[in-house]
């Protein structure tokens, strides 16, 4: 059986904040270890400050010097299988306060298995800085999709 991380994050706000904090700690550590600076680049709240609380997005990280971002969407099992991770590249253009950039969008149900895959993808994208073609191939190789 798959060990899910931050189970019930959509209904338990404490767990939700723990999941957010986990992603922040992950990016903080990666940035410190590889000597780059990142910042979150998309809102996670409504105008009145109330968070979306649905993992869409759970976390975003933009490395301006690379013109590359990572956009994490986290979901729960009622809409997906316990083992689910998908990813694609997207172009961010025309936003105020965000330089035009390429983003790696990762959509996952977080478990030990999918966490390891996400970490590999993020490392390739931000640290190894593989080209887009190579990244697309890595995404295709590791995706675990919901069986129909």
């Amino acid at each position, binding site marked *: 059986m798959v060990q899910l991380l931050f189970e019930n994050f959509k209904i338990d706000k404490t767990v939700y904040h723990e999941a957010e904090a986990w992603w922040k700690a992950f990016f903080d550590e990666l940035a410190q270890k590889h000597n780059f600076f990142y910042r979150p680049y998309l809102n996670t709240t409504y105008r009145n400050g109330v968070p979306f609380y649905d993992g869409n997005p759970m976390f975003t990280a933009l490395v301006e010097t690379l013109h590359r971002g990572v956009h994490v969407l986290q979901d729960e099992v009622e809409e997906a299988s316990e083992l689910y991770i998908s990813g694609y590249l997207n172009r961010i253009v*025309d936003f105020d306060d965000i330089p035009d950039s390429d983003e790696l969008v990762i959509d996952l149900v977080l478990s030990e298995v999918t966490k390891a895959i996400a970490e590999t993808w993020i490392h390739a994208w931000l640290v190894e800085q593989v080209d887009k073609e190579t990244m697309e191939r890595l995404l295709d190789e590791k995706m675990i999709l919901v069986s129909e």
Partner: protein
Amino acid sequence: MAKKHRGRIQAQGGGTEKSESWSQDEPLSKADGLNLLRDLENQLTDKERQDREKQLADAQRFIENAQGVDAPTTRIFRNLKHKRSDIRIDIEVIAGTAFMCVLLALIFLFLHSKS
């Protein structure tokens, strides 16, 4: 000069790339946001619409329930049971504010006209 409130709603993935956008001096109202979503839906082929049935419904629910959303915001509506999550509807608020109820938008405009 670029308008203060801008954004787009897009159908993406699986070879589809269709969008509706806004660019205006006042925040986009929920009603206008829903109209843009409907216009986008009308651009889709039957197959594209069928593939995005859940995504369109989720996007509609988001706009209806939103209490105003500021840029930069991206919401990605996908259907995880539909193989790849890049078959999707994206809402991007790229500048300013969107999905305000009409009353709030009027107050916003009034305050801006005073400043």
